[in-house]
């Protein structure tokens, strides 16, 4: 069926976007000009020959609230409130920010104009595709909710063409509008000594591995080619790196699944005695540590992009990275020396499974408690190192820190319950020993261990 109100359509090869827009402006038309080229789509809203607004269907809206928060333009508490009120719509966010006096009223039309120019500068470079003009104004009414500003088509076109030329001249050909950059964790210099300008600092602040170049451009109101040039400079200075989106997605997926499995492991076997629970906790943490290490063997910065690395080399790297950490921790838990080991690129805690054959009663409980504490410390250090090496101080890194904290809280709660149970058992046994005068206060007796070395059921 023919869409209603269509008064003009054609191919971009025959009539370019520039000419079509000029024609509609000269005849003072009101309606929606839809342009498509491959996967890209654009809807330009016109009123009496002026541009009112523009929509890019399918393109994710830039997260303006979060970017403003990172730039320090809005405090974090206000950001949460704004998000609740505005949802994901940046235009609504700006309107509310004006209301809250977080930005000047003139910023609203400036941002709309900037967005229109950016999008048209991209569309004027499309050589193939189709356009259609519809007189139907309902999409305009639905899209432009607040006060309307009219933009002159000639001015918009001039700016858009200038910007398109800038992209052509830009030396940052390898960077595209979808490039995502991220702060490099290894940078240990003084950023203030680098003589960065205001815009460069802005781009640096927003290079958190999350926002694409075009979103940064919109947040800072700096043209995309200019942002690309700044990003290239930051890359040269070693302040940021370009994120490999595919690798990053894979890495995040692997970590999320690892934490999901660890949490599931933790939630099992809750109804057991203290020793069994301690052993279960060690197993959960052990599985988690080995999962993290297997993950790191695949995504460690040193091992990335080198094709298939020999297993021996991977194990050597892992032993050198994590082995000394465990050795250092074991100084605080000497009982765990040789019981929990790091060898062949993994944490070996198998000795703990048969520990009850070697030690009994309170001694067993104390050993397992040491193992729980050792594994807990080790797991935290391994995660910090893995995350810092793989994603650094980026937004993804912070999100994982958040998720990890939630998991650690569950581990800590479990450990606190165990510590309480151990203390309660100890008090109970001490009281029982005091109530039995004449009984020798040897360690096995005091901790409720039968002469044959087996724990008494309390």
């Amino acid at each position: 069926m023919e869409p209603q109100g269509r008064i003009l359509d054609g191919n971009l090869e025959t009539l370019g976007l520039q000419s079509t827009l000029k024609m509609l402006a000269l005849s003072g038309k009101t309606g929606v000009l839809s342009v498509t080229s491959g996967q890209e789509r654009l809807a330009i809203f016109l009123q009496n020959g002026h541009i009112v607004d523009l929509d890019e269907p399918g393109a994710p809206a830039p997260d303006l609230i979060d970017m403003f928060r990172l730039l320090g333009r809005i405090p974090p508490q206000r950001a949460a409130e704004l998000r609740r009120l505005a949802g994901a719509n940046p235009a609504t966010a700006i309107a509310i920010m004006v209301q809250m006096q977080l930005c000047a009223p003139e910023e609203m039309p400036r941002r709309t104009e900037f967005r229109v120019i950016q999008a048209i500068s991209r569309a004027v470079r499309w050589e193939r595709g189709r356009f259609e003009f519809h007189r139907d104004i309902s999409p305009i009414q639905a899209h432009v909710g607040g006060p309307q500003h009219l933009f002159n088509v000639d001015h918009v076109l001039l700016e858009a063409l200038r910007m398109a030329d800038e992209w052509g001249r830009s030396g940052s050909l390898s960077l595209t509008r979808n490039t995502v950059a991220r702060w490099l964790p290894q940078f240990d210099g003084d950023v203030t000594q680098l003589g960065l300008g205001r815009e460069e600092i802005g781009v640096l602040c927003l290079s958190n591995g999350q926002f694409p170049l075009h979103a940064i451009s919109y947040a800072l109101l700096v043209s995309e080619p200019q942002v690309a040039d700044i990003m290239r400079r930051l890359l040269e200075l070693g302040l940021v790196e370009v994120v490999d989106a595919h690798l990053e997605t894979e890495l995040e997926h692997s970590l999320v699944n690892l934490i999901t499995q660890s949490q599931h492991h933790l939630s099992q076997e809750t109804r057991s005695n203290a020793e069994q629970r301690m052993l279960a906790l060690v197993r959960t943490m052990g599985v988690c540590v080995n999962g993290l290490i297997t993950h790191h063997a695949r995504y460690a910065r040193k091992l990335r992009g080198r094709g298939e690395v020999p297993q021996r080399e991977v194990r050597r790297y892992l032993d050198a990275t994590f082995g000394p950490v465990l050795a250092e921790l074991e100084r605080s838990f000497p009982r765990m020396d040789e019981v929990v080991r790091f060898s062949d690129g993994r944490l070996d805690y198998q000795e703990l499974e048969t520990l009850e054959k070697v030690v009994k009663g309170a001694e067993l409980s104390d050993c397992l408690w040491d193992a729980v504490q050792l594994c807990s410390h080790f797991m935290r250090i391994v995660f910090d190192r893995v995350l810092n090496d793989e994603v650094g101080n980026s937004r993804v890194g912070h999100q994982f820190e958040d998720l990890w904290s939630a998991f650690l809280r569950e581990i800590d709660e479990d450990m606190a319950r165990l510590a309480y149970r151990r203390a309660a058992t100890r008090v109970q046994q001490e009281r029982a020993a005091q109530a039995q005068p004449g009984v020798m206060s040897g360690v096995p007796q005091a901790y409720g261990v039968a002469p044959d070395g087996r724990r008494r059921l309390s």
Partner: protein
Amino acid sequence: MEEPVVLVVDDSPTVRKIVQLTLQRERIRVVTAGDGLSALAAVADEQPDLMLLDIMLPRMDGYNICQVVRKNLAYRDMPIIMLSGRDGIFDKMRGKLSGSTEYITKPFDSTELVQAVKRHLETPAVRERAAQRMASRQQRLRRRV
């Protein structure tokens, strides 16, 4: 387009965070609740498009929440995906009988979760609810301005 809203009900803060992180990346707004009664309050306050529901919950279990929600006409069609560590046929059947739409066993794969959520969110009813939410938000905004 307004973001769809998913309510995640689980007593584990880790699971809540995992689901939040996974779905937010897909541009889905996530609200969370840690127990049964907070879940019912969140359904009324946030009017979610979909609910991910654990079974073992403090104060009211997942089966009961499911039954209570289904009794309300406004949420009769809301997809409810049960997330549970129990993978027996009996548990799955009980979930189905209490009104859940799908049953996912823990530990779940994040891709599997996203696929299931998207499958249930891409329905005309959900799109209509999102449009209504956007209209009411704009109305609120206009009133403020």
